[in-house]
């Protein structure tokens, strides 16, 4: 690697590093944080649901999921159920996922329901 190349790389790294923790893919974040309640298939059947008074949303349910705009999905993931008058059993993930990761997550949810807002 030439010196100027190396310098370029270092400069690039300097811009990336301050963003803090590594960005993870939506699939991996879903597996880690959402599957415990929403299930391996995203159908709302995670290992935690037996004694939950409100059941997790079935993310493959196109009818229910198309009733939510991307902004609403973003909000409920970042700020939790109560932010859209839903159950406190849906936690807020703001401290765990970055805004970029939440935006990726919304796109991923759209692939699970194979739906868009209003469709």
């Amino acid at each position, binding site marked *: 690697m030439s010196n100027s190349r190396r310098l370029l790389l270092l400069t690039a790294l300097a811009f990336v590093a301050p963003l803090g923790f590594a960005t*993870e893919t939506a699939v991996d974040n879903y*597996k*880690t*944080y959402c599957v*415990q309640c929403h*299930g391996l*298939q995203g159908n709302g059947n995670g*290992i935690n649901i037996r*004694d939950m008074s409100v059941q997790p949303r079935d993310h493959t349910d196109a009818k229910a999921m198309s009733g939510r705009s991307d902004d609403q999905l973003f909000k409920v993931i970042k700020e939790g159920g109560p932010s859209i008058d839903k159950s406190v059993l849906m936690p*807020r993930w703001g401290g765990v996922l970055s805004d970029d990761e939440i935006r990726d997550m919304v796109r991923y949810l759209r692939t699970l329901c194979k739906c868009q807002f209003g469709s």
Partner: protein
Amino acid sequence: MTGRIFLVSVFAAVLWPSLVLADAGSAILSKDCVGCHNLKGPAPQTLKELWERQGPDLFYAGNKYRQTWIVEWLQKPQRIRPAGEFYGQHIQSGAGGKDVIDTSTLKPHMALSKEEATSVAAELEKLRPHDDLIAKEKVSVAPISKQMGEMVFDKFQGCLACHTIEANYGGLSGPELYTAGRRLQPEYIASYIRNPQAWDPKSWMPNKHVSDANIQKLVNYIEVLSTESRNVK
């Protein structure tokens, strides 16, 4: 000269047992435990590292556990996390698309003799990199009724989704909490509820932004649960 020798041997006689004990503890840890437990830190920084975790991190054991509990548990280990560690490695889709825990992948924990357990616990007690987080917590003992505690735990905060509060009641992705009062130091309980990510950046317990007053209630509730489960046993 003879006086010196005498002094040295007195010293040795007094110090020797504790030195041997500690040495035995660290020898066991580095031989039998490092394969599954992180004893040096830091906690996983990426999800890949998190998924590879074979057992809970022990590098802050001195900030976390009650030493007497470690000695007891290591002689007679019993399951604490219904879905093991990392939970994602121990679940599968079952009948009707409902997830189930694959218990065949959950192995019993190795047991130690009383002497081994005592020396290991003494060694773990020294691991205290998070004294700073512990020092921030002030837990005051205030009795709370089981009903009131459960109200906060379940209805207001939604903790029941991931934790059991009695055998077979509650969520399964987090450790059982009806024994946590015996297992954990109260300041650790408070600190982990306040900010799980301060201890474990990739933890799948979210920060619930619990108020100070409710943290106190929850810590006292968890204590109540553990005295009760002790009486039952």
